[in-house]
């Protein structure tokens, strides 16, 4: 009560008194009485004098009319306006009740006074209905007629509770949710320990208890009676769990019995490790139980109906730091109910923002916990708001006040209190609450060591219970009478009180062990409460479709990145900067004219292509490595809410795809431009993009499976180094450890390396599709075909043949090779060889000579054709242009590599066949038998799928994308995580 208000009140009292000539003494006495209950002795007189002065002021001039004088009207109006500006509706209504008590203090009612009172209530915006209820209530104080009414709530929102000889009349004012009471006959009644007077109006505050000699009336119970007639929503929650064990078989909870109706706030308390959070997790259905039942309105807690109506608020911070308060709520809301349209979402979000006092900061970015933009208390309220959007009927909250200031803590708890006033049930695990907060709870559920319940009942009664059992004094005052300070620590002091040894020192042993408390509890608690008669059926809320969820996840991620300027800059500049760096450093050509750079003579091009791929892998892995990891807390919640993992993963992949498109584009365009690699841009882009995707999905897999960010980054080199070593670029396959590589082909292990597929693709493209080579590739191919045979194959076969006698049978090698040669398209129609198995050396010799000659002549013919083609081109373009064509597009080192020009062994024999070991880029047919199991040659231009022949580039691209898609499936089914978990499950147990 501050000064201003007291001054105003004195004036109002005076004005009201003045309206009538009667009973001034009674009014006088009331004022004195009022002041003595509100203010300390020294100041009382001052205000009383004020009252008297106002009265005297114009008492001489007063004419007793039935009308309120204009002066009084305006004066009252002015005072009320001032009060309106500073008082809440709650305070004004309470003020009105006092004014009413004042006005009706004398039994003779004065019409003008009542008129003025009514007028005042109008200015205060108090509803007329409630004013009439107040009148009824206050009048009843002096109504000495006997009342035989039962405990019924009449139309004036009053309730008489009869007991023995007297009756207490309660008044409930709905708009401010406050109870008043008074009683008529003098008797010993205490309110929270304080002795009361009859015929006086008292406020029945939260958590208070009225005690008569025989009975105790709890505020919560009386309130429930009134509210039960108002709220339409009826909920009942029950849980019966005889035993619950951890995965490690240790007992977590025992003999749990919970029964609650709507409109209750229950505090779960206990010492550390007693199982509070476990209890919360079990009751909410997060940790499923094997023995026991949990029901919400008749539905099992594990049913979809229940899940739609249960909320869980953990201690984790589930906010997206880069988004604003509004956006955090918005994206959450969009995932709740498929039926909510744009308008409804807006309204719901606004309501939650206002209810939790977050409306003013709705456009603030949340920020991280360290660099935050909103205070700790606001953060916590926002976390709560996320869950409240779902409008759950039952809420489970884990330590909402930890780390908050006492004011913030009270704010938070009153939010939950308001929810229960709307008929919900809220369970809160709370540790060391202040006495203010403690009083908010309607019930307490106290656990002791080993998950044993030791108390379940009314809050204030708990202290009495414990004191009684431990035989301490002062057991019927639970609240300090002068300051209404309840100390919840008393409970734990009693619970854990230690034994004294013979010297009077405290030992470490408890006086009363947990099991004994539990036994007391079982004896005292009968586990029944009055169940709600009417229970609503639960609504099943359908979540938005997979596609809609996908859109929300995508948008959410997108917005949170757009605002992170640092991230955006790095991620977009990374690729081009690296590309530029790389290209610049290796831009040097080994030609005679030192000053001029010619692409043709740059010895670094194969390495450049290889580096492109490695850079791609690095960037793509690191960009995606943290993606899922940073969302892990939010994911945990979304898993609880049964949101689609597929949608989530798809949105991540989609985002990374878009990013990779951009990054790969920048990488290729900058790199290729600087190094003057002209043409084939699209091939480069597509391939590099595909490898980006591989890296992204692999990164997502790591992000999703590993438990710490350090583990993720340590694994990255383990992934990339093999890619480097086994790609065939750094170390040629023929030079690798013989155990890997049984022949001259690609080792099996290299075929699992995406770098190999990528490198091969690009090298093949770079050679076969460059503008210069394209014009003559066909010729070169044929020329190589012929040259190999005339220069190497047939001479070798000739050697083999010569050592044998003419009519001896050919060796398998000779036979197989000749058979193959005879069936080649090139010669099939010209020579109709029909080789039989037991072919003679003579026949072989003959065939070899024929073929050799044929190939030689073909070689000459094709050579001339090639020359004329080149001549034509030269004539068309001009000599200079022609030179430039080659130096711009054709690179010597690439050519060397794909043709394997430096190799010494131009052929090899294996499985009784001769195989070509160089110029694989010109290979025109797949060799039989298929090398597919053991590996193929690197840099072949075409590959076979079944009977169809497609280009290496397309084939490799298909392989890469098949790999990408399988990785996505592995990601979706979390296979990696499951594999890792199997190994570690013995060590990790969920203690919480």
């Amino acid at each position, binding site marked *: 009560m501050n000064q201003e208000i007291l001054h105003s009140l004195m004036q109002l009292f005076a004005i009201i008194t003045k309206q009538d000539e009667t009973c001034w003494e009674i009014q006088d006495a009331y004022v004195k009485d009022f002041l003595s209950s509100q203010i300390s002795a020294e100041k009382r007189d001052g205000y009383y004098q004020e009252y008297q002065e106002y009265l005297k002021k114009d008492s001489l001039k007063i004419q007793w009319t039935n*009308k309120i*004088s*204009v*002066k009084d*009207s305006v004066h*009252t*109006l002015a005072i009320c*306006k001032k009060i309106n500006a500073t008082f809440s509706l709650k305070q004004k209504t309470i003020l009105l009740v006092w004014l009413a008590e004042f006005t009706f203090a004398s039994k003779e009612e004065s019409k003008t006074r009542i008129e003025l009172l009514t007028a005042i209530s*109008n200015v205060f915006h108090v509803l007329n209905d409630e004013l009439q209820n107040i009148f009824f209530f206050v009048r009843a104080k002096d109504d000495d007629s006997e009342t035989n009414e039962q405990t019924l709530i009449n139309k004036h929102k009053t309730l008489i509770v009869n007991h023995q000889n007297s009756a207490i009349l309660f008044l409930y004012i709905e708009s401010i949710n406050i109870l008043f009471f008074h009683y008529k006959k003098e008797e010993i009644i205490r309110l929270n320990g304080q002795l009361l007077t009859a015929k006086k109006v008292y406020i029945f505050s939260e958590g208070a208890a009225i005690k008569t000699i025989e009975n105790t009336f709890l505020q919560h119970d009386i309130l429930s009676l009134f509210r039960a007639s108002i709220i339409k929503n009826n909920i009942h929650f029950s849980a019966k769990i005889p035993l619950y064990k951890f995965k490690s078989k240790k007992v977590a909870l025992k003999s749990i019995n919970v029964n609650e109706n709507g409109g209750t706030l229950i505090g779960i308390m206990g010492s550390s490790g007693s199982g509070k959070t476990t209890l919360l997790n079990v009751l909410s259905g997060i940790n499923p139980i094997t023995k026991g039942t949990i029901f919400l309105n008749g539905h099992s807690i594990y049913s979809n109906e229940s899940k739609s109506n249960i909320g869980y608020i953990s201690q984790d911070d589930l906010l997206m730091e880069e988004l604003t308060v509004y956006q955090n709520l918005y994206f959450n809301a969009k995932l709740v109910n498929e039926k909510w349209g744009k308008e409804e979402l807006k309204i719901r979000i606004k309501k939650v923002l206002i209810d939790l006092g977050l409306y003013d900061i709705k456009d603030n970015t949340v920020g991280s916990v360290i660099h935050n933009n909103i205070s700790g208390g606001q953060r916590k309220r926002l976390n709560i708001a996320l869950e409240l959007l779902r409008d759950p009927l039952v809420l489970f909250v884990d330590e909402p006040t930890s780390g908050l200031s006492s004011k913030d803590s009270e704010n938070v708890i009153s939010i939950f209190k308001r929810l229960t006033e709307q008929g919900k049930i809220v369970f809160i695990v709370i540790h060391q609450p202040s006495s203010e907060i403690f009083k908010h709870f309607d019930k307490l559920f106290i656990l002791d060591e080993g998950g044993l319940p030791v108390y379940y009942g009314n809050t204030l009664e708990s202290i009495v219970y414990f004191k009684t059992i431990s035989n301490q004094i002062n057991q019927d005052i639970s609240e300090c009478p002068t300051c209404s300070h309840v100390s919840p620590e008393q409970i734990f002091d009693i619970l854990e009180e230690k034994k004294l040894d013979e010297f009077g020192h405290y030992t470490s042993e408890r006086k009363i062990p947990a099991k004994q408390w539990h036994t007391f509890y079982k004896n005292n608690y009968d586990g029944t409460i009055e169940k709600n008669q009417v229970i609503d059926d639960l609504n099943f809320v359908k979540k938005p479709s997979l596609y809609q969820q996908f859109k929300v996840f995508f948008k959410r991620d997108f917005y949170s990145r757009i605002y992170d300027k640092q991230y955006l800059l790095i991620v977009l500049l990374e690729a081009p900067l690296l590309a530029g760096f790389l290209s610049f450093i290796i831009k040097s050509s080994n030609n005679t004219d030192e000053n001029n750079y010619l692409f043709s003579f740059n010895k670094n091009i194969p390495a450049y292509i290889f580096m492109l791929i490695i850079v791609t892998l690095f960037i793509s892995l690191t960009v995606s490595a943290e993606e899922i990891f940073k969302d892990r807390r939010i994911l945990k919640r979304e898993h609880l809410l049964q949101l689609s993992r597929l949608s989530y993963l798809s949105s991540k992949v989609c985002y990374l795809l878009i990013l990779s498109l951009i990054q790969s584009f920048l990488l290729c365009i900058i790199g290729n431009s600087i190094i003057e690699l002209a043409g084939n841009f699209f091939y480069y882009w597509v391939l590099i993009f595909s490898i980006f995707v591989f890296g992204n999905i692999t990164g997502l897999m790591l992000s999703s499976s590993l438990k710490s960010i350090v583990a993720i980054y340590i694994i990255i080199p383990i992934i990339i180094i093999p890619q480097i070593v086994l790609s065939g670029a750094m170390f040629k396959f023929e030079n690798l450890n013989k155990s890997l590589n049984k022949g001259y082909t690609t080792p099996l292990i290299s075929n699992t390396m995406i770098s190999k597929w990528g490198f091969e693709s690009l090298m093949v493209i770079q050679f076969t599709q460059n503008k210069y080579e394209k014009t003559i590739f066909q010729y070169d191919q044929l020329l190589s075909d012929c040259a190999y045979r005339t220069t190497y194959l047939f001479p070798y076969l000739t050697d083999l043949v010569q050592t044998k006698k003419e009519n001896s049978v050919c060796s398998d090698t000779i036979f197989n090779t000749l058979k193959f040669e005879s069936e080649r398209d090139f010669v099939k129609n010209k020579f109709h060889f029909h080789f039989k198995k037991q072919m003679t050396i003579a026949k072989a010799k003959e065939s070899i000579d024929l073929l050799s000659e044929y190939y030689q002549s073909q070689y000459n013919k094709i050579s001339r054709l090639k020359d004329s083609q080149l001549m034509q081109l030269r004539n068309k373009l001009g000599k200079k242009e022609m030179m430039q064509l080659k130096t711009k597009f054709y690179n010597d080192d690439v050519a060397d590599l794909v043709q394997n020009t430096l190799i010494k062994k131009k052929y090899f024999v294996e499985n009784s066949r001769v195989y070509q070991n160089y110029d694989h880029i010109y290979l025109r047919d797949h060799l039989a038998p298929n090398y597919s199991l053991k590996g193929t040659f690197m840099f072949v231009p075409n590959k076979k799928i079944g009977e169809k022949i497609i280009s290496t580039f397309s084939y490799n691209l298909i392989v890469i994308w098949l790999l990408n898609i399988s990785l996505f499936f592995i990601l979706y089914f979390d296979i990696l995580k499951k594999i890792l978990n199997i190994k570690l499950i013995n060590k990790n147990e969920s203690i919480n």
Partner: protein
Amino acid sequence: MKRLIINKTETSPFIDFCFESRILQIQGQSTLDEVIEFYTPVIEWIRSISQKQNIDFTFILEMEYFNFESSMMLFEILTELEKVNSEGKNSIDVIWNYDERDEDMVEAIEKYSEIIQLPFVLNKM
């Protein structure tokens, strides 16, 4: 703007708001119960002044008695006038005629002037 004339009755005052003459009058006594119904058109009329520009109005009050509800309405009217004035587009001068023997009225007017930021000219009759 249409002229607003309401004839005097036993319980309600005489009201004459005339745009042409720039004079707004309320005169008589106000003891009716349904004040909101009665005074809403009055307040609306004053509000619509803000559609005009550069007009100087004179508001003349002469009340014998008004009940509490009416005093609330008078407060609203005066607040609206205050708003018009502070907007700056038009101006209002308030003249309050009173009978000097009616001390209650004097004090009431004084009280109003404390809570309304609009200068009154008090005119003894």
